[in-house]
């Protein structure tokens, strides 16, 4: 309290402010190294393949949505580096709290295409039992399925991180969310708690320039999203989110800082949503086509591919083989998942409580009777 009526100097904050305003990158749009890449072929190849798998799956999900087999899809196209690069920085025991647009992050964390597709189709093997569309998660991988209200998972990630710390576990949590989500109460509360309690959590803002039709400069008047960390005593770092090497390196530093007890980090991955917001959106209403077109040159997969080839890690032929092999493999999985039966009607009353309460038991009987009556009246269940 002695220091209550005193002034502070700006100098101490300068390094952090610079990191929050800059744009860290290792390779440029053409795959040229602009800063020494600290990674060997193995992790680079893992990143590349993760992104390729996500891209192929993404296209399938679009197609499946069009034929009505998937209810809604939020394409990750163009943002694979931000999603994969950050999730890859986590260890198996760490926890991920993603949003709805993180296809590459699930894959980076070990979820396979079949688990993702079962989920997307809400078929009998759907791990989330037909509860919701567009979100993914699995206990096995410590991925908590996103709430559709954007940003609501942010304080959850902080709470889980605080819990890990209280229990003395060497576990880090990560929340991934969009630029739009930073406007929500949950962002504010989560960042503030993280700062005060030095929780071992990493926040990743995928600044993809848009929140549906709202450009990010209309989301906030802050210079950058990373700068918001200053308001919470949480160091911010801004990186080129389409440079998977920059994302991964920065996220890894943040994760290890957190693990070492040095507190949270706010990472802004500057990226771009090449597709529509979701399959229900029509970006032509608000975004000039040329803009998205012009942004294609920042495509993170193409960029890493170029770098890998320039560095001689893969050849053009190997690159093509990766795409075609994964293409075939995923096609086979899609077919398998496509044929699986639907979930049983009882899912609608499942998992509300640890044990059904009396009203749910009554309602289960009503549901069962209604299935009979539907037959009698000749009404289908779909």
């Amino acid at each position: 309290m002695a220091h209550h009526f005193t002034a502070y100097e700006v100098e101490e904050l300068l390094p952090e402010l610079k990191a929050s305003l800059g744009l860290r990158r290792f390779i440029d749009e053409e795959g040229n190294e602009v800063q020494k890449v600290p990674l060997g072929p193995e992790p680079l190849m893992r990143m590349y393949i993760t992104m390729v798998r996500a891209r192929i799956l993404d296209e399938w999900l679009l197609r499946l949505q069009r034929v009505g087999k998937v209810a809604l899809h939020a394409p990750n196209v163009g943002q694979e580096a931000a999603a994969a690069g950050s999730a890859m920085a986590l260890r198996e025991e760490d926890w991920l709290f993603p949003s709805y647009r993180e296809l590459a992050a699930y894959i980076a964390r070990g979820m396979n295409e079949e688990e993702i597709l079962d989920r997307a189709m809400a078929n009998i093997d759907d791990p989330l039992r037909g509860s919701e569309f567009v979100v993914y998660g699995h206990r096995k991988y410590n991925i908590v399925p996103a709430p559709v209200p954007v940003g609501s998972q942010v304080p959850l990630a902080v709470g889980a991180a605080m819990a890990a710390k209280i229990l003395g576990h060497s576990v880090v949590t990560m929340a991934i969310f969009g630029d739009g989500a930073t406007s929500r109460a949950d962002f504010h509360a989560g960042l503030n708690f993280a700062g005060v309690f030095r929780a071992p959590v990493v926040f990743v803002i995928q600044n993809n320039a848009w929140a549906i039709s709202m450009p990010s400069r209309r989301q906030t008047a802050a210079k950058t999203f990373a700068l918001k960390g200053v308001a919470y005593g949480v160091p911010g770092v801004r990186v080129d989110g389409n440079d998977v090497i920059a994302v991964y390196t920065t996220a890894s530093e943040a994760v290890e800082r957190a693990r070492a007890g040095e507190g949270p980090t706010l990472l802004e991955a500057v990226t771009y949503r090449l597709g529509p917001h979701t399959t229900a959106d029509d970006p032509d209403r608000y975004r000039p086509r040329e803009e998205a077109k012009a942004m294609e040159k920042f495509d993170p997969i193409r960029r890493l591919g170029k770098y890998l080839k320039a560095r001689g890690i893969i050849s053009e032929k190997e690159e093509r083989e990766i795409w075609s092999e994964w293409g075939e493999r995923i096609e086979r999985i899609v077919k398998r998942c496509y044929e699986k039966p639907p979930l049983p009607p009882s899912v609608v009353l499942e998992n509300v409580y640890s044990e059904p309460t009396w009203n749910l038991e009554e309602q289960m009987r009503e549901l069962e009777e209604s299935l009979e009556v539907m037959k009698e009246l000749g009404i289908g269940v779909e």
Partner: protein
Amino acid sequence: MPVTNMVQALNSALREEMRRDKRVVVLGEDVGKRGGVFLVTEGLIDEFGPERVIDTPLTEAGIVGVAIGMALYGLKPVAEIQFIDFIYEAFDQIATNLSKIRRRSGGMFSAPVVIRGPCCGGVKGGMFHSQSNEAYFVHTAGLKVVMPSRPYDAKGLLKASIRGEDPVIFLEPKVLYRAIKEEVPEEDYVVPIGEARVVQEGSDVTIVTWGAMVYKALEVSKIARSRHGWEAEVIDLRTLFPFDKDAIIRSLEKTGRLVIVHEAPKTLGLGAEIAAYVAENAIELLKAPVARVTGFDAPFPLAHEKLYMPNEARIYMALSRVMSY
């Protein structure tokens, strides 16, 4: 009279009220160029500009809080919640300021904000694009709550809401946005808040319902008539608070049997208040127990929403129950 759907009717209501009264402004996520995700605000920004059609940052607490401040100052804001399922961040603003500022200020200040947004199920929208959460607002003294089931009412009720002096939660069943078309006058009219509509007269049983369930009730009443000759009176409540108790009692005086149908979960859904009102004030009219057909007491599901929501079979079961008591 032009034939329009509910989206168009709502759009005209907004446009006409904005023309009529400069104090009317629209705000929300993506309401500008995007026109809202369902296009209810389509084109408004072209006519009224970004000062009166305000694209906001992504925070419902902010949208509602700012709208309340605007209303205190003298504007008539119509705040869009992109899906009504997202309104909960604004719940403190609603419970603390919107519904109470008149009383809190001894009547010196008021905040006649209209909060509107798509509600209810039937479009495979999953857990957060399908909720019917009217009960929270009906329980909150100081708010009025409205839910139209057809374009004519949508336009007339939205106008009445905008012109009123009280905050209104205006719920739009999204499954009806483009499903129902009817003639809607171009001349100015309002549908008064607080008046139910008898959609179909009948003498055997009263079905009180609202939103998209009106159509389900009508369908089942046809089945009931053809199978058993039962004549159901179908009442579209339209205003959920203050609801038209007199219309319900009038109908029960004829029928003596009450089935309430709503999409919201059963426990403390508005059906509970209607049933309680009758049990308190008109129990002698009842020839059979009251029956409620509602969404189940579980989160709205993606899979099997048709089984989760009141469907023909469940409404039919309830009718049979009260008719055969």
